[in-house]
């Protein structure tokens, strides 16, 4: 529950650039089902935050309601967290950032929490380009209420109870690109390497970063007929390229064959290097991103990797033009106008 002080680690223990051990980024013990994709994502978040050396006290973790939304209790125990109401985490995150623009929020949501009850708030979070790492742990069903269809369930996919979705699936990535998110990626809870890279890059990005992470629900939606099962994703994932994330503080140079890779510099100077599988793909091209999503959907495939990025667009808090000190820490002298101000106003009303 408390912020761990940077201590010198026992010999042989691995520490990060701010002298913290990985334990400083862990949280409480999970209460989710064994094998649930959400748990794997929590582990990747712990690793990514550790490797990036983010300060736990600067991070906040937020969520709505669902199995996925429970998971912030299972990572970053030294960071403030807020498990809010179903579908409305975007508003809470936005408000917290208004209070303190220096915070680094990680939001965790589910496909129901985002695509159904929270669709409205999700739309406006992306449209505002609120600087947040927004992770949808997408299992195509409602886990916590025991297995109903969610809006990301593919048309024709069947639930364990036999109910078949007759409606088209909502593509959260396409929606986010279209709405104005500036970092859009898709990954799979079981793909350690790719998910880590994507998470670290999202942490370095300043703007709305949507991570649509396919995360099988082993209890209600991991059977034949489900397009969000381990087996299906393993067979149908279509990685855009191999992603390497190069944090700006690591003095390493990675050599890539210029003909087959593309590097994008993020807000803090970090770089995402995309080793291309598909020669034509450039994640800075919005139209290409939308076309890719559309085409892979048509083929029944999942495009994974970094789909779209625009590191230059100012974020929501950049546009607010507020003082440098977080509003939550402004002293009274700066927030209560003096006597002359009130006298001035009264004189006009006399």
């Amino acid at each position, binding site marked *: 529950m408390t912020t761990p002080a940077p201590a010198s680690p026992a010999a042989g223990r691995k520490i990060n650039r701010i002298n913290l051990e990985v334990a400083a980024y862990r949280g409480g013990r999970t209460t989710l089902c064994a094998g649930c994709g959400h748990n794997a994502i929590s582990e990747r978040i712990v690793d990514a935050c550790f490797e990036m050396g983010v300060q736990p006290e600067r991070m906040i973790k937020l969520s709505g309601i669902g199995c996925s939304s429970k998971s912030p209790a299972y990572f970053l125990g030294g960071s403030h967290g807020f498990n809010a109401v179903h579908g409305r985490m975007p508003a809470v995150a936005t408000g917290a950032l208004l209070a303190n623009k220096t915070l680094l929020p990680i939001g965790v949501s589910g496909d129901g929490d985002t695509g159904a009850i929270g669709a409205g708030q999700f739309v406006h979070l992306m449209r505002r380009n609120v600087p947040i790492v927004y992770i949808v742990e997408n299992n195509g069903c409602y886990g916590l209420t025991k297995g109903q269809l969610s809006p990301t369930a593919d048309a024709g996919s069947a639930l364990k109870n036999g109910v078949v979705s007759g409606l088209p699936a909502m593509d959260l990535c396409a929606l986010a690109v279209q709405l104005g998110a500036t970092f859009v990626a898709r990954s799979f809870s079981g793909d350690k390497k790719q998910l880590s890279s994507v998470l670290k890059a999202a942490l370095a990005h300043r703007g709305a970063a949507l991570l649509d992470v396919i995360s099988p629900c082993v209890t209600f939606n991991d059977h034949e007929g489900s397009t969000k099962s381990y087996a299906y994703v393993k067979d149908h994932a279509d990685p855009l390229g191999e992603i390497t994330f190069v944090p700006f503080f690591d003095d390493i140079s990675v050599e890539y064959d210029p003909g087959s890779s593309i590097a994008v510099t993020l807000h803090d100077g970090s770089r995402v290097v995309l080793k291309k599988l598909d020669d034509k793909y450039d994640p800075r091209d919005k139209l290409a991103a939308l076309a890719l999503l559309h085409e892979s959907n048509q083929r029944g495939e999942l495009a994974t990797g970094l789909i779209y990025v625009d590191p230059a667009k100012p974020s929501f808090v950049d546009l607010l033009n507020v003082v440098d000190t977080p509003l939550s820490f402004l002293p009274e002298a700066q927030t209560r106008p003096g006597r002359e101000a009130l006298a001035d106003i009264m004189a006009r009303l*006399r």
Partner: protein
Amino acid sequence: MASDVVNDFSIQVATVNGSGSQTANLVLIRSLFQMGIPVSGKNLFPSNIAGLPTWYTIRANWRGYIARKKDVDILVALNPETAREDVLALDAGAAVVYDAALKLDEVRADLTFYPVPFDELVKPVCPDAKLRRLVRNMIYDGVLSRLLGIDLAEMDRALEKQLGRKPKALALNRAALAAGDAYAAEHLSKADPFRVERMDATRGKILIEANAAVALGAMMAGVTVVTWYPITPSTSVVETLIDYMKRYRVDPETGKATFAIVQAEDELASIGMAIGAGWAGARSMTATSGPGMSLMAEFSGLGYFTEVPAVIIDVQRVGPSTGLPTRTSQGDMLSTAVLSHGDTKHIMLIPSSAEECYSLTMKAFDLAERFQTPVFVMTDLDLGMNTWMADEFPYPDAPLDRGKRLDRATLEKLPDWGRFMDVDGDGIPWRTVPGDGLPAYFNRGSGHNAKGQYSERAEDYTSLMDRLARKFETARRAVPPEVVDEVAGAQVAIAAYGTSHWAVEEARGQLAAEAGLATSYIRLRSYPFTQAVERFIDRHARVYVVEQNRDAQMLSLLKLDLTPGQVGKLRSVVYYTGLPIDARSISDEILAQEREARQRARP
């Protein structure tokens, strides 16, 4: 002609929405105000941008009774659609200034008629035909100044105050004012008893719409995060606040703001953002009205249960549902007290005046942080959107109360800390905020123990709920107390709140003067109530609870706190037409119930 009636009349101006009569009406009020006469102005308008009938009522009263008066003494009839109906509704003896073309003198014979050829008068004054519609209204101000004896120089001053920055409009309106005055001097002979005389009852006072007073209270409380979604009648709270903040809360050196104001996508988001900001340590607020309050229910419960400060301004309008969006009501009292599911209870502050809209809004921020909970300021459309006299607002005399926000020194002194641990026995725990470097905690709307950890244990739940109840009891001693005016020996008393206050004061005068009935009065200003309410009820035989809703909502809230004996003394007076309550409706109802009680008491 009957004997003169000095400084005691109501004027009703009947026009069409969007016809620009606002300037003329404000000049009329302001000139009376400048002459030292207590005055109020109420806009009774439709939910429409242009084209539907609208009435503006001005009340001048030397005693200071500025509630809406039931009967109209002087009608200014400019709306052809409603003119006949408006005239038929008058009491005998009233005066009518009207557009001569409407031929209203044919309708009744027991009124004083003053026909004015508006179109003819406006032509030479305003050569530009397109502007005439706007300038035309100033003519009735000129006519009234002559008929009532309002100093034309005061009208001119008021006009300058209103339009000073627009020289062209000022010149046109001045000419129209003069034309109306000259016409009345030449063609109308005074035949009604109403007139004004200078007084000295408005010295040191201001004229303000109380939504602006709320905005001022918020700014002076040091609000830093404001999130909102437009809805009548709360919109002008935030729009005025934006103006003030731009002027007084921008760092002159850097040009950067010490606040953030965000128009959200709906009220679910506006309160969600306010809660997020309050959790993260900002002084946050949102403003809304009935439909928005309904949407805010779930988050209000979250704020209560997870102990997050935020201020919610509810400018009440007529419900249920969309109801009458531009009419006034006190219809959200009961639902707000318990807004959200489960055992939720909220602190509400209830201003009656512009002064209190300022001071209680400021207080709401202190209470929200002190008690770590959403606090609701319950005003209404009548207060918020109408023009009120007020004493000048005093500069706050106490520093901001940021409540139990932990710092390192305090943390070290505490024997133990958990976010929801009651270390001081007052039900209020200590909190940390993100980014302060102090111990973090996980805030959750689900069951939690004193450390904020997930818990479904019965003992954890009941002890949390009991502590929240204890906190509410602590609040009972910190909220603004009721204002009591006790008359020695009075058996009958009135309890009221909010804008009903003005009509109650006048009704007490009527009861005393016309029926010899002395009444004590308690004005409620908060929920929870203080102990004073019970003691007050104990000292009286019957207490009439006056309110502007159908279901006697405040009476229901009182019942929750009272003994059966005390409840037995409560009577209800309700008024729910959408118009601001008037004194006569109260005094008539109280007398009727008193008579009934006497009859029943007879063997």
